[in-house]
């Protein structure tokens, strides 16, 4: 069973690769756009990479609800259940 922290770490890896975000800055309460400075095209890359990494589908109309890292973790946790 993957813990929430492990999902955060996995997302941090993706964010570093795609957008150059420092992994130390990634935490559940952080907003992708406002805190981590991820632009819209990079967010698309993050979503596709997360789908592949965690073996889930993240529909486009769901992406707008994923404001924070924690939102993404919750969605992935539920989708994997």
């Amino acid at each position, binding site marked *: 069973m993957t813990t929430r922290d492990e999902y955060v770490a996995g997302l941090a890896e993706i964010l570093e690769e*795609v*957008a*150059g975000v420092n992994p130390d800055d990634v935490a559940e309460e952080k907003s992708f756009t406002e805190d981590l400075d991820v632009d819209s*095209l*990079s967010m*698309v*890359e993050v979503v*596709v990479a997360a789908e592949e990494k965690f073996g889930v589908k993240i529909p486009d109309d769901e992406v707008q609800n994923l404001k924070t890292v924690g939102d993404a973790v919750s969605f992935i946790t539920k989708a994997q259940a």
Partner: protein
Amino acid sequence: MTVEVVVTGIGATTPLGGDAASTWEGMLAGRSGVSALTEEWAAQLPVRIAGHVAVEPTIDRVQARRMDRSEQVALVAAREAWADSGLAESGIDRERLGVVVGSGIGGATTLLAQDDILEEHGPRRVSPHTVPMLMPNGPAAWVGLELQAQAGVHAPTSACATGAEAIAWGLTMIRSGRADVVVCGGTESVIHPLPIAGFAAMRAMSTRNDEPERASRPFDKGRDGFVLGEGAGILVLERADRARARGAKIYARLAGAGMTSDGYDIVQPEPEGKGGARAIAMALADAGLDRTEIVHVNAHATSTPVGDLAEIIMLHAAIGDHVVVTSTKSMTGHLLGAAGAVESIATILAIRDSVIPPTINLDDPDDKVDLDVVAHKARHLEVPAAVNNSFGFGGHNAVLVFVRA
């Protein structure tokens, strides 16, 4: 009274060096930047030589993955030219700063790489950066973004005349009052099996695969086509009064430009170079110079059998038999959309340093080459005024006249 325009910054990344100074040094030493293609994909091609940039582009990793290689080399050269101009320190109103940077082929390698991903993994895996990476205005847009240029960002495309045409439009932009400073030039990076196969299918490229450094040999009897190179060249053009007022280093004055089209064939040059001759005449008139004042021509001469001779006829007709000619493509290979810009830098530095770089590999000049071509070794000569020729598939002719400032 026409506004005078001078060159206050230069930048280049080429098969001879990672900046303008090392490129120039390589040219004066008569070095070749061409080497064998050792990639696995090259084995099946009829052409297995090319000129990669001597120094890999230094772009931040995250930014680099959003940029086509042609955009990366353009940005590297633009950063150098901008730093060289001193404008970062002296300052400029960004609404008076323009950019004109073109490429001959654009982001072809991005297009092909993303097509591979589409075929293998499906549309969802295609990068969201694909379009800005492959669009032909991408290099101009990245340079404009970096410098926050707001007077207009343009991307002319005229195959191998692109770099020179971009500089000509930069001149027009300043003269017309739209900008005080224009960062302009050309870029190209398409060392990939598809463009090579395409050019090779036209029988336009040298197949001297066993002797890469001797393959690009403009005006020589043994020439058998051009050698593909990659890189970028960028100039900073500036209103002369503005440049003088801020005490800028001035390389040369861009005195005039001429652009014409052949209306003859989609790829073949008009055999007597009439369109190019008209462009030269136009550029000289624009510069207010008599043909006898032109000491030196940095020729387009790509090492193709037909093109090099058409240019010789053209130079006789438009300038005269006194002119001292060279083709630096013998060393860099043919940088397509970047050629006119890199060769403008060679022309400018020939004026500044009173030395003309050689045409290497000119061991046995074609019988019809009856002009003074600087063979093998650089030649010291005062160059008060010089012409840079560029011609492109599609019948585009772009000629620039530089004079000592």
